[in-house]
């Protein structure tokens, strides 16, 4: 303890916190005065008295020095002196200092931001205890990589397996909250009673579900998310035990989850239980549960997979018809991300590394130039007896200052940039949206900074000492040494190569994005407003009650000025990938064989006109297609082509969605599953032709309105119309069709913007690198140019000579760059949406851009070389 306090006082002294010097001076002065007084009394002359006192003290300065060494820690003081000296050195060349800091900021900032994002999405453990034991369980059907579980299969898997400590299930179940001010559409999840205990997260307040809450006939209970509790219930603890109304049914609030609990997705605002009844276990084809299990300690994912596969095989034998070809697959919760989002992030990682390489190469060149310029100074210092360690320490101090400044501003840049990148965090990740700036990022940035400090502090110092040592005094600044020159050229060539890789990668991805964006979705996107009015059940169980609502809303909306048409549909294209039913043609049961399924949507008349989908033959559904008339269907072209390739499809019958349907019309195909996926053929059914209480999940929810006005301007009027039709009806998901389609490419677009920014920085830095090196070379060869000109070389010769040197470096970087870029493009192939990795247009554009940049970079030095004044150049030195 004593030791520590001494160290602390000395450290304070070293950092100048204690004003020791002045105080010591005063004390010594008083000492001398007292001694002088005594000496005077013993009869000395005033001069003698003072001189004797100083002598006896042993010298004023020596005393002060001894005192200072005691008061501080000499090593730290020397370091501080070095840093102070380095600071002054840097202030003397602010251009160099700022450029170096900027380069470090760019290099580390880009990597810190991307690292944090990638760490957050791909590496960091999910916010559950022992998250590596959490496993998703899915069914596997021919033609689909993954399929939800049916309740019956879930029950059988749960009771038969021995791999899982617990197996739970959930699905999405949005409901309307009424009675808390404005009616509100909430994202929710239905879960089995053991879900929370499987995840092993407890409630913030109150409790989560027990198995009793999940029993058939148990009273309704609900657990709220922290966000919902804060926004809708003002964080009031008294909400516990109260009843809230979801879809007009009372649920007792039993608990609030912590703020960082997001499951199954970030949007989930509440949880209720399934309360399965025996009847729910009848249909093995009703795949709507996601399974999540917690492995028993010590059981591996592979072991669980093989056990579940065995159980699935047994179920196939037991239910040969329903479970035909149905297997089971498992995947770690952490790994349940789309390949696309993984590849998107990896590409960004690679790009950030390229930027780092380029920034470091530039930095290295900058430092080499600087140490070359200081060679003379160093030579003098070395020959005057400065030791190498001292010079090394001084170089380190400089790079320490630069590194710390650059690293700090890089963390700032990354912190600002992160929220902009947060859209690259997949929605399905059960975590918060914006990756937090935390210790992991700081440590990452710190270690990069340290590497840079040491690498760029030590290397130039060693190099400078070596060259400066051997007669550095004799050698002029002009002759840099061949080895030095070669190193700098290699650095510039590496920069060019890395920027070519970036140029081509982002070029290919731009082409891919354009290609995806130009994909015809099959419907019109401009001038369309869409919104969600999810009707609650059992209030709207009766088909006729729903029809009244739709008819009232649609009639009033169609009367609004500017509105050309409006319609209702179960779910708009690209908003729901579910609702797939097997198609039964000619009495044959074609359950679940690949391609024999189609998406089912109920529509009101006018849907095709509203979305601009062409009716190829036959007619639209009409108000006359009521429940007591034959059940009709409008099918897409691909549907008709599949089953009746050379025949007239109108009038044909097929079994679909629990009923026989007659085809009355054929319409254009739309991309139900999104721009980049293949979609099943589409079948549209009349909104009136469904028995009461059946398929209520398919009851039309999405209102689409086409108008000649700006779509958003209609919103207030439409809200009023819906409120008039049903004052407790919620309105949610108000979007234009452009936003829905734009959402398909949003993460691509963001990734591309980041990539373009990186590429722009990279190509700029590469150009600057060439410029810097050539300017240096030109200034070094000024004398030579002067002599050449004096001997009759013309200006164009010199001009070409410099340009040629730039061109050689450009080509030397371009060739390996192109090869590397092709390799990178192969890795990106899954993102390229069909654009070939060796796309000629992209490669040639990138090569041209690279050459133009290097040409621009070489132009200024070349012009300067041409302007060399022969007489002046030869007179130097």
């Amino acid at each position, binding site marked *: 303890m004593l030791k520590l306090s*001494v160290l602390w*006082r000395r450290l304070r002294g070293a950092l100048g916190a204690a004003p020791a010097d002045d105080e010591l001076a005063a*004390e*010594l002065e*008083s000492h001398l005065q*007292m*001694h002088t007084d*005594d000496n005077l009394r013993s009869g000395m002359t005033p001069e003698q008295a003072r001189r004797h006192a100083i002598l006896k003290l042993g010298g004023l300065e020596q005393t002060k020095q001894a*005192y200072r060494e005691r008061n501080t820690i000499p090593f730290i003081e020397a370091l501080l002196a070095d840093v102070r000296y380095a600071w002054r050195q840097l202030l003397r060349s602010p251009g160099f200092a700022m450029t170096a800091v900027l380069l470090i900021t760019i290099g580390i900032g880009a990597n810190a931001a991307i690292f944090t994002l990638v760490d957050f999405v791909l590496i960091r453990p999910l916010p559950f205890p022992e998250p590596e034991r959490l496993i998703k369980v899915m069914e596997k059907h021919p033609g689909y990589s993954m399929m939800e579980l049916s309740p019956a299969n879930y029950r059988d898997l749960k009771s038969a397996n021995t791999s899982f400590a617990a197996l739970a299930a959930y699905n999405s179940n949005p409901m309307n909250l009424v009675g808390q001010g404005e009616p509100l559409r909430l994202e929710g999840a239905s879960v089995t009673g053991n879900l929370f205990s499987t995840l092993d997260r407890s409630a913030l307040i109150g409790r989560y579900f027990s198995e009793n809450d999940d029993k058939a006939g148990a009273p309704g209970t609900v657990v709220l998310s922290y966000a919902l509790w804060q926004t809708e219930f003002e964080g009031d603890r008294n909400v516990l035990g109260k009843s809230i109304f979801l879809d007009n049914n009372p649920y007792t609030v039993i608990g609030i989850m912590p703020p960082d609990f997001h499951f199954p997705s970030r949007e989930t605002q509440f949880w209720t239980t399934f309360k399965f009844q025996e009847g729910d276990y009848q249909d093995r084809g009703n795949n709507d549960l996601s399974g999540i299990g917690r492995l028993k300690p010590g059981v591996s994912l592979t072991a669980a997979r093989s056990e579940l596969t065995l159980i699935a095989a047994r179920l196939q034998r037991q239910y040969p018809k329903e479970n035909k070809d149905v297997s089971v697959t498992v995947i770690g919760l952490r790994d349940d991300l789309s390949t696309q989002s993984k590849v998107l992030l990896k590409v960004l990682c690679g790009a950030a590394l390229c930027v780092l390489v380029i920034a470091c190469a530039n930095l290295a060149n900058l430092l080499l130039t600087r140490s070359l310029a200081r060679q003379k100074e160093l030579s003098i210092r070395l020959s005057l007896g400065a030791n190498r360690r001292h010079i090394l320490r001084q170089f380190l101090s400089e790079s320490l200052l630069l590194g710390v400044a650059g690293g700090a501003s890089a963390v700032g840049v990354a912190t600002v940039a992160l929220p902009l990148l947060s859209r690259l965090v997949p929605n399905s990740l059960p975590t918060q949206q914006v990756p937090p700036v935390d210790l992991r990022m700081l440590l990452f940035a710190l270690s990069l900074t340290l590497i840079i400090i040491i690498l760029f502090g030590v290397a130039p110092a060693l190099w400078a000492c070596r060259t400066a040592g051997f007669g550095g005094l004799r050698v002029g600044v002009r002759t840099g040494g061949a080895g030095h020159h070669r190193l700098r050229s290699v650095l510039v060539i590496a920069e060019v190569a890395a920027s070519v890789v970036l140029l081509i990668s982002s070029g290919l991805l731009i082409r891919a994005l354009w290609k995806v964006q130009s994909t015809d979705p099959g419907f019109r996107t401009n001038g369309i407003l869409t919104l969600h009015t999810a009707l609650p059940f059992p209030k709207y169980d009766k088909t006729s009650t729903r029809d009244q609502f739709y008819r009232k809303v649609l009639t009033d909306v169609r009367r609004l000025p500017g509105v050309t048409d409006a319609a209702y549909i179960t779910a708009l294209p690209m908003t729901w990938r579910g609702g797939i039913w097997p198609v039964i043609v000619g009495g044959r049961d074609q359950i679940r064989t690949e391609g024999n399924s189609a998406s089912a949507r109920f529509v009101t008349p006018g849907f095709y006109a509203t979305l601009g989908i062409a009716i190829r033959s036959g007619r639209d559904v009409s108000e006359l297609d009521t429940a007591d008339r034959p059940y009709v269907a409008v099918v897409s072209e691909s549907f008709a082509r599949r089953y009746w390739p050379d025949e007239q499809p109108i009038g044909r019958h097929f079994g679909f969605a629990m009923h026989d349907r007659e085809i009355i019309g054929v319409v254009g195909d739309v991309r139900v599953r999104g721009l980049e996926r293949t979609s099943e053929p589409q079948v549209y059914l009349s909104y009136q032709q469904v028995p009461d209480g059946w398929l209520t999940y398919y009851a039309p929810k999405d209102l689409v309105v086409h108008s000649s006005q700006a779509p958003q301007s209609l919103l207030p009027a439409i809200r009023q119309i819906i409120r008039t039709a049903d004052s407790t009806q919620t309105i949610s998901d108000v979007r234009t069709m452009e936003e829905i389609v734009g959402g398909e490419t949003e993460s691509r677009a963001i990734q591309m913007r980041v990539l373009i920014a990186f590429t722009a920085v990279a190509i700029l830095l590469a150009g600057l690198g060439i410029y810097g090196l050539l300017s240096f070379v030109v200034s070094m060869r000024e004398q030579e140019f002067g002599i050449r000109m004096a001997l009759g070389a013309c200006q164009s010769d010199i001009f070409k000579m410099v340009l040629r040197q730039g061109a050689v470096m450009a080509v030397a970087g371009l060739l390996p760059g192109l090869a590397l870029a092709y390799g990178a493009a192969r890795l990106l192939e899954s993102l390229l949406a069909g654009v070939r990795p060796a796309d000629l247009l992209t490669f040639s554009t990138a090569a041209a851009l690279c050459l133009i940049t290097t040409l621009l970079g070489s132009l200024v030095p070349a012009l300067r070389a041409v302007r060399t004044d022969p007489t002046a150049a030869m007179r130097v030195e």
Partner: protein
Amino acid sequence: MGDKADVWQGTLALMVLKTLQVMGPSHGYGIARRIEQTSGNLLSLNYGTLYPALLKLEQEGAISSEWGVSENNRKAKFYKLTRAGRKQLDREAQEWEQATAILARFLSPAEEA
């Protein structure tokens, strides 16, 4: 100078502490003079070496200092023993006596051996 002993490493602190115990609070110059007098002018003390020693003792908490006025009306920094300093003095004095006693036995003419 030749017949005067230099101050051995480490003993100066002990002398300072002892002096402060005997004289009570005093300034650097006073301590220096007193050490010389006590040694019967046998010690050659560079007064300047006293100040780092005083600083070290103060850093260790054995003494404390404050500015005051000397007997001749000069402004001076006065040092005094702290409790910890008194303990340190007792301990070190004892150790020192022990060490000198042992050495004395070695150096005195051998009687029993």
